[in-house]
């Protein structure tokens, strides 16, 4: 599995070509002399690497056995880390992922000391070291007053240092030089069949585990206390996840190395979290982003002749940045567009309102609008154009259509209702309320306005004494606005057939005189020729009376 190589990317190499240098790769073998030696000439990797490699096209390279192995291994790592990473990120354990990956070094070193070079030995050593680290970190977090992230930092740096010291011990006492570089950054082009088998088994195990324990992982991550009441052991799930994480890290060593496995764990997951709001989809997207990062990174590394591990991490970061900017809803660009759209709408509505005011006064002209709104001619033209498009402004001349007038009245209603609310309920004085209302009138929905109107008891005048327009579609002079003690008549014109029918049932024919006796919660009591009649507010608001 893990090949400990001398630094074959060192600058001293004349060609500077990764693949060429790879041809000269020196492997560490656990042979008798425990010395470094050059691999046999028939090594799978060597065959493809001619010094004149630059002439080899991408397609040719991809037909090489080592390239296929590298591609399969990277894909597995991308998929596995993508899926697992979602839970790591959601549990705020990104730093633990980093810690575990570094902390397996002493596991590898001790395994080497005990059994020599053995893929299985390294695997077991790494998993034991990973779990021990997870356990110690959790123990410190629960039993010592050290801050969580400090505990993580303490443990993994200590583990890593022990590993590094172990390496120097080995080189001093056994004469074997272990190079950290592959441990840190991976060496995907040196993947052997044995490595590939191990990676595949680990990947399959991780996938099956996540599918089988999906619900447990979901609850413990979302709301641990609920998991406990369901009898799910949070501790078990935590350590199980740590086990999977150790597996994934060990399996990824060869491909991306311990530093960059963190990139494969958290970057695709973070990308996916920007793209979806459902955990199932986040897992799928994260896996695909991980896969894409791995494959594109590897291909990029081959084309640009650079190191594959970092290329995959860079590719993952590029995909993340694309999501940061272009993700629907959560992307920076989307938010900017939305803000711009709102700003433009506000400007258009302000234009509409001003046009309405000037039209009421009979003074509507392009110059007056420009003057009042303080907008440039171009912007004003654009605003008027969009008002025309909405059918609020007549096509040929500068005049609001009936729909435009209604839309403007809605804005005035929102403005004045909100002013009334601020003055009556919040207790702001009349100088403060205008600017507030000027902003909010654009954002209040009809639902909120109805509620505000109800809470305020259907006011007719705002704090400045200006009339509050009634809701569009309701009568011009609703019965609900007649104050207690005042008298009026039922109007001939009603808003709808239903209202006319209801009134007929109640014996309230057009022209019937009445007076309002009192208003109570939800009802208005009127006096019709000496007889009391209770009308619900909902009806009173729809009944048109003579003005």
């Amino acid at each position: 599995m893990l090949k400990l190589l001398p630094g074959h990317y060192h600058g001293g190499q004349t060609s500077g070509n990764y693949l060429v240098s790879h041809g000269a790769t020196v492997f560490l073998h656990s042979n008798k002399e425990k010395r470094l030696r050059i691999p046999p000439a028939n090594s799978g990797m060597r065959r493809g690497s001619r010094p004149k490699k630059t002439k080899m096209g991408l397609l040719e390279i991809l037909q090489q056995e080592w390239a296929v192995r590298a591609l399969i291994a990277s894909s597995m790592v991308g998929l596995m880390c993508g899926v697992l990473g979602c839970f790591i990120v959601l549990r705020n354990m990104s730093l633990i992922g980093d810690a575990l990956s570094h902390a397996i070094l002493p596991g590898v070193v001790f395994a080497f000391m005990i059994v020599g070079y053995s893929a299985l030995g390294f695997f077991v050593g790494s998993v034991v070291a990973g779990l021990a680290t997870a356990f110690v970190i959790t123990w410190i977090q629960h039993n010592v007053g050290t801050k969580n992230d400090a505990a993580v930092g303490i443990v993994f740096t200590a583990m890593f240092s022990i590993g590094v010291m172990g390496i120097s011990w080995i080189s001093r006492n056994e004469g074997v030089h272990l190079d950290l570089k592959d441990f840190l950054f991976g060496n995907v082009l040196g993947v052997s069949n044995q490595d590939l088998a191990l990676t595949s088994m680990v990947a399959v195990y991780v996938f099956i585990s996540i599918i089988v324990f999906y619900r447990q992982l979901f609850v413990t991550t979302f709301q641990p206390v609920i998991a406990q009441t369901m009898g799910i052991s949070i501790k078990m799930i935590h350590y199980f996840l740590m086990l999977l994480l150790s597996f994934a890290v060990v399996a990824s060593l060869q491909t991306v190395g311990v530093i960059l496995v963190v990139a494969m764990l958290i970057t695709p997951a973070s990308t996916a979290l920007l793209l979806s709001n459902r955990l199932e989809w986040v897992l799928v997207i994260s896996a695909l982003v991980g896969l894409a990062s791995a494959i594109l990174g590897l291909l990029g590394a081959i084309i640009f002749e650079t190191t594959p591990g970092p290329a995959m991490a860079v590719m993952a970061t590029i995909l993340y940045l694309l999501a940061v900017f272009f993700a629907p809803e959560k992307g920076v660009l989307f938010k900017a567009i939305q803000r711009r759209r709102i700003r433009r709408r506000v400007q258009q509505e302000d234009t509409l309102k001003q046009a309405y005011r000037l039209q009421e006064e009979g003074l509507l002209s392009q110059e007056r609008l420009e003057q009042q709104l303080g907008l440039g001619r171009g912007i004003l033209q654009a605003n008027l154009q969009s008002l025309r498009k909405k059918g609020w402004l007549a096509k040929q001349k500068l005049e609001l259509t009936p729909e435009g007038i209604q839309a403007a009245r809605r804005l005035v209603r929102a403005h004045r209702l909100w002013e009334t609310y601020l003055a009556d309920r919040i207790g702001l004085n009349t100088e403060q309320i205008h600017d507030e209302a000027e902003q909010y009138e654009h954002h209040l929905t009809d639902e909120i306005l109805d509620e505000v109107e109800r809470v305020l008891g259907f006011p007719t005048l705002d704090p400045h004494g200006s009339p509050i327009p009634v809701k569009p579609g309701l009568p011009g002079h609703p019965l609900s606005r007649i104050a207690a003690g005042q008298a009026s008549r039922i109007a001939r014109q009603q808003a709808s057939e239903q209202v006319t029918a209801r009134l007929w049932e109640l014996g309230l024919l057009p022209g019937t005189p009445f007076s309002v006796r009192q208003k109570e919660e939800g009802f208005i009591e009127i006096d019709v020729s000496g007889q009391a009649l209770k009308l619900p507010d909902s009806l009173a608001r729809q009944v048109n009376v003579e003005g």
Partner: protein
Amino acid sequence: MPNPVITIKGLSVSYGRKRVLTNIFMDIEPGHVYGILGPNGAGKSTLFKAILGLMEPNAGAILVKGKPIEEHRKEVVYVPQKSDVDWTFPATVFDIVLMGRYPHKKLLQRMNEHDKALARKALREVGMEQFENRQAGELSGGQQQRVFLARALCQEAEAFLLDEPFVGVDITTEEKIIHILKKLAAEGKTILVIHHDLSSVPEYFSRIALINQRLITFGDTAEVFTKENIANAYSGQLPILHQTGGWE
């Protein structure tokens, strides 16, 4: 008299050296909405944790239908305070409500149409059916609380433990929740609610437990919700009494 659903016998709990609950005895019967009242730090939440088996008691026992909670986990459902969740979590309202079905499922068993139908029914009951596909973080505080209640309903439990369900919710939600709780009690379920607004106690709860580390009083609201008992429970925290004063 009906058999108690939850029996608490001589319960004592402490955090480290600090004693939180001492020698509590309660028989909690079905068909009532119980108010669990007491000042801050009185041990109300600890009582819930002990009932749910999340805390090991120092002494005493808690039985659910005569057995330890471990054997009846499905039957007791907890509605925690909505503040203990990271609401940016990628889950829709429906995903969260469906969690109520988890205790009914074996490891590899999938959610079926029956489970989904129950989740939809629960959402309808709390008036949140149109928010099914909404991400939970986009909801208001009151709506989030209703989602938690829907999840509990969907579990079809016998006993419901709600921790401060009326904190930070709108009036409509508060009315809706209490309406549902009373309906559940009428159907023979057992409801326990940790509550701190004393003015609404007589209207909301048919029985109460006043707790301040010890059990001050326990019984029908009409009988035990007296000035003396409250003063006893809230000793040293009298300003709260002056503010609310709804028991006279």
